């Protein structure tokens, strides 16, 4: 895969090792920050998460790409070109770099901060200014308001956005991000993550993203590289792979006991088996409806309107022997979801409402089917035994392309 | 060179009212008196505003003034005051020229470092600790004594150190006014022209030795009085960085 298909570049680690000369290194024990024979390839335009416990070498690996740390052996290439062969400052000015504390220059305005690399590259000041404003808008900050402010005047979340804008200023094909959303509170972090994913849809850069948070890794990554102590790559694959088929005990433990549940956040209602509902309309014959309800597995009838939109449930026993179905008989209880809702959210809603069944509707609100907790649980268990590298799987309507990346994961 | 040794080893210079010991005593006396008076005035105030946090402006302004005003100027400006006080306080003007102006000047010079250091030292104590103390039921005076002062001790003693050095140095010049102190060797030597060269040197060396000696002793005391758990990098590092802005150079008023 070359970088021509997207705006990103291919980053490849080729047997990269970083060793620190301490006593511990001699007897082979893991030295914090060391990296051991790392080989992986990040395809262009994808987000690759480097995740693992403290000291596992993920940050070290990241910093070797822009040569803040030099590898002891092995090589790293960008689009096939060895990074050692490029000039140091040249290399760094072509890579976007975002760190946890952001490191905005306190003595410069936000506008000047964002235009840092363009300024270093010698762009004319009018172009610098234009680019600065363009990027501030891109990350959701009103340029007129923020351009002339100083970093000290901004909140943590705002500063992080500026950090991202600054990294994007010279339109680098690669971005290195080291726990960029770690220093803000969970609500802000969630928002920043969502906005960044949306941003990536339009800029499609190759992103190497370090985090210690497995949930963030699952959420953000197209590919996830799990590191363990000693700088060893434990597993490299899509989030679904990592969750469905952890390659070792370590990965299984790191991912957490709840990886089944975690997987549910990657699956959508459309992935699960839906049950066709037993429906009835107001005005239908009660006797006939009662028969149909009896045949229903759960002995419930779903009352719908002319647009096939759900009104409420009627239990079989509550349907009179004669007369017609009326709206009053129905109990409007049950959460409604659509096909794109994640199974995790759907499950959450059903548990909250203390029901067994959720109603799946389409954009007009019409009933498509029923989703039971049991179906969700089955889906959770099923995934466990699925073959990890299923090359025939279609890329879903969601952000993570399962298909083409599997081949890459096996290859690496 | 030999002249200096000659001077220092000449027994004649070691006895009498103009001998080295006598001058040394005079020097220490006037310095000590000034620092003592300044302590009596400045320390309670400094501890009070440091503990309560009120009067921060006073501390900052005093720090600025204390650093900016030349000591020689203070020495000199006090003269008319003391001389006019002579008839009031009932001593002869000639005596007034000797002791009082220097004493007042010393006290004035020593007040800013002592007060500001007391303030800065107390302010450097982590607020959480004080709150914890209050929460446990300690009285304000107990908090001051058992929590704040031990932690602030390094900075407070630093203030004394500055004050004493300041005063010792000024007393040297003060000899131009009064009859006493090691500075007299320098001035007497000046008035003797070529012959007095040894005296000038000797005086300079003696004063320097005194200053460095006192500084070393106080540095030692400063280090020893700090509670073991706080030595010395932790307290100093945190305190100095936080207070550099507010009271920059509080520990470093110039020695004249």
């Amino acid at each position, binding site marked *: 895969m070359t970088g021509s298909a997207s705006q990103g570049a291919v980053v490849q680690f080729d047997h990269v090792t970083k060793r620190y000369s301490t006593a511990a290194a001699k007897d082979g024990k893991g030295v914090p920050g060391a990296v051991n024979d790392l080989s992986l390839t990040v395809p262009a335009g994808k987000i690759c998460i480097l995740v693992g416990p403290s000291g596992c070498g993920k940050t070290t690996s990241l910093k070797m790409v822009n040569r803040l740390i030099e590898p002891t052996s092995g090589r790293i290439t960008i689009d096939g070109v060895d990074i050692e062969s490029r000039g140091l400052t040249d290399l*760094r000015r072509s890579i976007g770099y975002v760190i946890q*504390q952001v*490191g905005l220059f306190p003595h410069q305005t936000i506008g000047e901060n964002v235009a840092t690399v363009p300024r270093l590259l010698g762009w004319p000041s009018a172009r610098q200014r234009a680019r600065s404003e363009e990027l501030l808008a891109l990350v959701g900050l009103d340029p007129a308001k923020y351009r002339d402010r100083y970093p000290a005047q901004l909140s943590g979340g705002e500063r992080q956005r500026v950090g991202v804008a600054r990294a994007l200023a010279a339109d680098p094909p690669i971005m290195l991000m080291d726990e960029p959303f770690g220093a803000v509170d969970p609500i802000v972090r969630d928002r920043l993550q969502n906005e960044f994913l949306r941003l990536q849809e339009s800029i499609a850069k190759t992103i190497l993203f370090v985090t210690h948070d497995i949930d963030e890794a699952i959420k953000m990554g197209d590919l996830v590289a799990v590191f363990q102590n000693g700088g060893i790559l434990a597993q490299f694959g899509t989030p679904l792979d990592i969750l469905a088929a952890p390659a070792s005990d370590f990965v299984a433990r790191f991912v957490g006991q709840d990886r089944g549940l975690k997987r549910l956040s990657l699956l959508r209602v459309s992935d699960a088996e839906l049950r066709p509902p037993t429906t009835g309309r107001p005005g239908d014959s009660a006797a006939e409806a009662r028969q149909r309800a009896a045949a229903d597995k759960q002995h419930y009838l779903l009352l719908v309107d002319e647009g096939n939109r759900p009104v409420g449930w009627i239990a079989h026993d509550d349907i009179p022997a004669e007369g017609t179905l009326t709206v009053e008989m129905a109990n409007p209880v049950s959460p409604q979801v659509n096909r794109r809702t994640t199974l995790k959210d759907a499950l959450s809603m059903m548990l909250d409402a203390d029901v067994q069944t959720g109603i799946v509707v389409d954009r007009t609100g019409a009933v498509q089917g029923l989703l039971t907790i049991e179906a969700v649980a089955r889906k959770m268990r099923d995934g466990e035994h699925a073959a990890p590298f299923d090359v025939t799987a279609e890329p879903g309507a969601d952000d993570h392309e399962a298909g083409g990346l599997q081949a890459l994961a096996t290859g690496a | 060179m030999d002249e200096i040794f000659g001077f220092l080893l000449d027994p004649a210079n070691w006895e009498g009212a103009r001998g080295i010991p006598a001058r040394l005593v005079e020097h220490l006396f006037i310095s000590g008196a000034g620092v003592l008076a300044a302590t009596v005035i400045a320390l309670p105030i400094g501890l009070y505003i440091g503990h309560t946090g009120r009067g921060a402006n006073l501390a900052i302004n005093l720090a600025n003034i204390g650093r900016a005003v030349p000591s020689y100027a203070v020495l000199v400006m006090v003269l*008319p005051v003391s001389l006019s006080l002579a008839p009031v306080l009932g001593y002869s003007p000639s005596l007034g020229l000797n002791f009082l102006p220097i004493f007042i000047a010393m006290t004035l010079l020593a007040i800013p470092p002592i007060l500001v250091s007391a303030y800065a030292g107390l302010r450097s104590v982590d607020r959480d600790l004080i709150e914890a103390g209050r929460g446990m039921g300690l009285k304000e005076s107990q908090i001051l004594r058992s929590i704040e002062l031990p932690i602030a001790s390094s900075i407070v003693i630093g203030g004394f150190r500055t004050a004493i050095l300041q005063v010792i140095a000024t007393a*040297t010049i003060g000899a131009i006014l009064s009859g006493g102190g090691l500075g007299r060797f320098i001035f007497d030597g000046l008035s003797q022209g070529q012959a007095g060269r040894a005296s000038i040197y000797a*005086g300079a060396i003696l004063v320097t030795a005194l200053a460095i000696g006192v500084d070393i002793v106080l540095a030692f005391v400063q280090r020893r009085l700090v509670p073991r758990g706080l030595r010395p990098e932790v307290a100093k590092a945190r305190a100095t960085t936080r207070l550099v802005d507010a009271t920059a150079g509080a520990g470093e008023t110039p020695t004249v």
Partner: protein
Amino acid sequence: MLEGKPLIDFGWILDHLDDIAESILQHLQLTILPLVAGFFLSLILAIWAVRQPRVYGPITAVTGILYTIPSLAAFAILRPVLGTSLLTALIPLTTYTLLILVRNIVAGFQAVPADVLEAAEGMGYTRRERLLRVELPLAVPLILAGVRLASVTTIGLATVAAVLGNSFGGLGQLITEGLQTFFPTKYLLGAVLSVVLAFIADGLFVQLEKVITPWARAQAGAR
């Protein structure tokens, strides 16, 4: 001091405005030269200390000892060697600025946040660019505080320079001559002028700091 005479003879002041002005200029010379020389020396020493942290201890120790020497003694020791030339005064005065400035310049560099430095390096600043465009500007507040302190200190110390010989001039000369001739007008004038000069210098640097570091104001405003 004789009783019955007025304390300040304003007539004398008006008659001698030229001499007074000259004294002030001499004093400025005695202040500015050591400050400038001291600043550049300190900058070199400080950058060295920041690059090689191990030399910081010895540098501080040496300058600390020098600082403890009472200035009159320092002037006195150098006088026979260098005579009554300007150097006799300038060398000790410059040395006194060293301790203040080295300490403050180093503190200034150490105050630059580590994440800012890392971001700068990661983004592709060369070492020199980083020093000039990031570290120095951010170190300025503390450096300025040091220069401010050094300037008022030097003004004060310069008053002592004239005690030993009247060729240095300056306001100290006014004071000393006034004392020697029991002429209060002269010595009080010298004293007051030196205090005024010190306060002007202090105020000047406070204003300078406000002008050069607009972001510090923003910082204060944000909190």
